[in-house]
């Protein structure tokens, strides 16, 4: 399996505080990998570092084997990596449709600039996003701040898909949502993967992460403590890796 995205000894820090201590991960083409761990384990930091929002060394992140660590986020998007950020981060004051259009605009600009090189195999259109989440068509003119949390999450996912990613990073997309809404959002995952997009899911809900992913990594205090096929890992193994039982804590 050739990795579309991989990290090699990924180290990241916020000022004096080191948040990641040499994280090695691999994401195969079309694969869905879950990243689990307690609060503060470094999951979101990992995504921010991959996305170029934190300074990291060039060799620490590779996309199709090419070193891309520390590339500016807008360039990462052009290279085919999109993120559904923690807390959704929608463009307040703009309508649902305008939020989505921003991504369409930029994908078109990148495609115009780079010809066929631009990442999008997905071929996501406004219509396909509307088919995926019909409520977004209904609320097209509504300002995003007056949507419910679940609907906002759908806009954030739609916006990321319209960047035409080969790799989609999802940061806690179930956080704060009702179980019914979470099911609705996770139901979109197979279709996203069918478009050939590889997915990294950062998830608090271990059961959800395990059932939705092919493989999973468990993180603890900035290190990967467990990696394996989601279907083969037992709850006991996860518990140990998650809470660090039996691990020497420095």
């Amino acid at each position: 399996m050739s990795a579309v995205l991989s990290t090699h000894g990924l180290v990241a820090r916020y000022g004096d505080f080191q948040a990641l201590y040499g994280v090695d991960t691999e994401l195969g083409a079309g694969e869905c990998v879950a990243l689990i761990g307690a609060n503060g384990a470094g999951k979101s930091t990992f995504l921010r570092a991959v996305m170029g929002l934190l300074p990291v060394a060039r060799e620490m992140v590779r996309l199709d084997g090419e070193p891309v660590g520390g590339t500016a986020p807008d360039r990462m998007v052009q290279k085919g990596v999109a993120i559904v950020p923690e807390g959704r981060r929608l463009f307040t004051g703009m309508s649902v449709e305008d939020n989505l259009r921003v991504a369409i605009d930029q994908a078109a600009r990148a495609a115009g600039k780079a010809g066929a090189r631009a990442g999008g195999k997905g071929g996501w259109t406004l219509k396909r996003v509307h088919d995926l989440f019909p409520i977004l068509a209904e609320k097209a003119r509504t300002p995003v701040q007056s949507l419910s949390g679940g609907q906002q999450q759908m806009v954030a996912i739609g916006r990321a898909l319209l960047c035409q990613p080969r790799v989609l990073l999802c940061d806690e997309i179930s956080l704060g949502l009702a179980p019914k809404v979470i099911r609705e959002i996770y139901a979109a995952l197979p279709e996203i993967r069918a478009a050939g997009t590889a997915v990294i899911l950062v998830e608090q809900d271990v059961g959800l992460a395990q059932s939705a992913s092919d493989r999973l990594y468990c993180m603890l205090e900035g290190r990967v403590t467990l990696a394996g096929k989601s279907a083969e890992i037992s709850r006991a193994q996860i518990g140990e890796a998650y809470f660090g039982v039996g691990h020497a804590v420095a």
Partner: protein
Amino acid sequence: MQWLDALIQGVLLGGMYAQYALGMALMFGVMRIVNISHGDLVILLSLIGISLASAFGLGPLPVLVALVPLAVLIGFVLQKTVLNRVVGNDPLPSLIATFGLSIALQNLMLQIWSANSRSLPGYGLESRSIEIGGIYIGLLPVIVLAVATGLTWGLDLMLKRTRFGRALRAAAADVEAAAMTGIDPRAVYALATAAAVGILGFAAVFQALRSTVAPADGPAQLIYAFEAVIIGGMGSVWGAFIGSMVLGISQAIGFRIDPGFGVLAGHIVFLFVLATRPQGLFGRA
């Protein structure tokens, strides 16, 4: 009648302020860049326009045609070389950088053009007026108001309908999320400042036509632009337009009460709005 006249003159004066305020609304309201050199840029462009007019014997329209592209270029270079280094969540670095730029520009202009007041020859345009029911309305102020309205309308449309406008609004709402959606904020900011200073090209021509300009006049224009944007509400283009009207009307009515009270009346209305509705008339709370 006297008060109706004051109201009309106020609206016309507001048209001039709107031309200063639009660029400010874009930079301060949308990008959170506090550009202290805003007024000095108007004066610099005015003086360049006056020199062009006298060197080549140009009328106001050719000067305008030459000045606006130059202003766009100045704005683009300003953002690329200075402002992109200091833009961020903290407004202080851009404030300090443009404060320094303001002082440098004033002294540069003093060196080149001396402290004398100058104006742009309007070939009679500045003194023509139309009479409607006993009230005389200057033709030039009407043109200024019409151009200001057109610029506001165009800018508003650009922000709402174009790819660039959406990218700019997205970057204004959340610059990091905008970058995560593929927007290069620095490229968007460079174009926005180019547009903002381009609008000042219009302001510069009309300012030099309707009154005189001297190198030290910039800070006063800056204050009016600031006040108009804050009265109207940050980030709203039509808000800046209405804020300019409120400021113009306040000054015109204040002037009728007592000629020395005009400018002060504008400041008092500004302070009143700031105290009672700090988000501005059209701003979101």
